[in-house]
């Protein structure tokens, strides 16, 4: 048995989905979130971009890593985690040859990643779709 007497908190990690018709670059990400080249917020959203970039991996690899005992096809495995609409988007993107990435943000890394980890949002433009609705905070 362990007894902890000081401040106790819980950590969290939340999943995200990125679908891109092109390479997922910092400039394209900043355009997606609405940060102009002159905006003072650029460094802050650059931190988020690097967190996403560092934690994302191709959907197929994510599914196989996350569901260690995938005996069915990987899309089916993802159904337990994502809404049907998201699965449909992933399936369609795979069929059309677009890039599909999945990953997790953590509340333990830095303040900026922690904030976006516990925020729930979905944004898209003609090049990129970012879904961070799966917030389990």
């Amino acid at each position: 048995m362990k007894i902890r007497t000081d401040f106790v908190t819980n950590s969290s990690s939340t999943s995200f989905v990125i679908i891109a018709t092109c390479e997922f670059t910092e400039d394209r990400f900043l355009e997606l979130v609405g940060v102009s080249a002159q905006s003072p917020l650029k460094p802050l959203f650059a931190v988020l971009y690097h967190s996403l970039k560092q934690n994302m991996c191709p959907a197929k690899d994510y599914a196989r890593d996350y569901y260690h005992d995938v005996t069915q096809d990987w899309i089916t495995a993802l159904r337990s985690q994502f809404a049907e609409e998201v699965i449909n988007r992933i399936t369609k993107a795979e069929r059309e040859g677009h890039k599909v990435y999945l990953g997790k943000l953590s509340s333990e890394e830095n303040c900026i990643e922690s904030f976006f980890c516990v925020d729930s949002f979905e944004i898209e433009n003609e090049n990129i779709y970012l879904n961070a609705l799966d917030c389990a905070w």
Partner: protein
Amino acid sequence: MYIREISTSKLFAVFDRRYTQDEFRAACQVVPGSYADFFVLEMHRCLFDHARDIRAEYKKYYAIEYPTISDFLFWKYGIDKETAQQIASKLTKSTFVGYSRDTMRIFDDETVKSVLKEILSALGEFFDENSD
């Protein structure tokens, strides 16, 4: 500018004045209606809109009870004496001291502080080279 997040739910911020949402948004130069714009509104809400003006509160209700604003911060808000004195030392005639219990928990981050400094510099906030 002085910002201090104490515990997970107390934020104290000292600014030259209470900036309006319109001027704050304009200084951020993000696309209106975008996710970054939503984030900017959250920051503004946290620092200004939802923040209680505790300097005004002190003057109106507590100046007789507590001889100094640092005593007031110590006894009424439970801030340690050192932080209370730091806040008090930042006060000038026109200073806004905001207190929020709905903090975004990002304001201790150095990148966020530097971003905020750039936004507020564009709005005329004075930054003392020796201030933290």
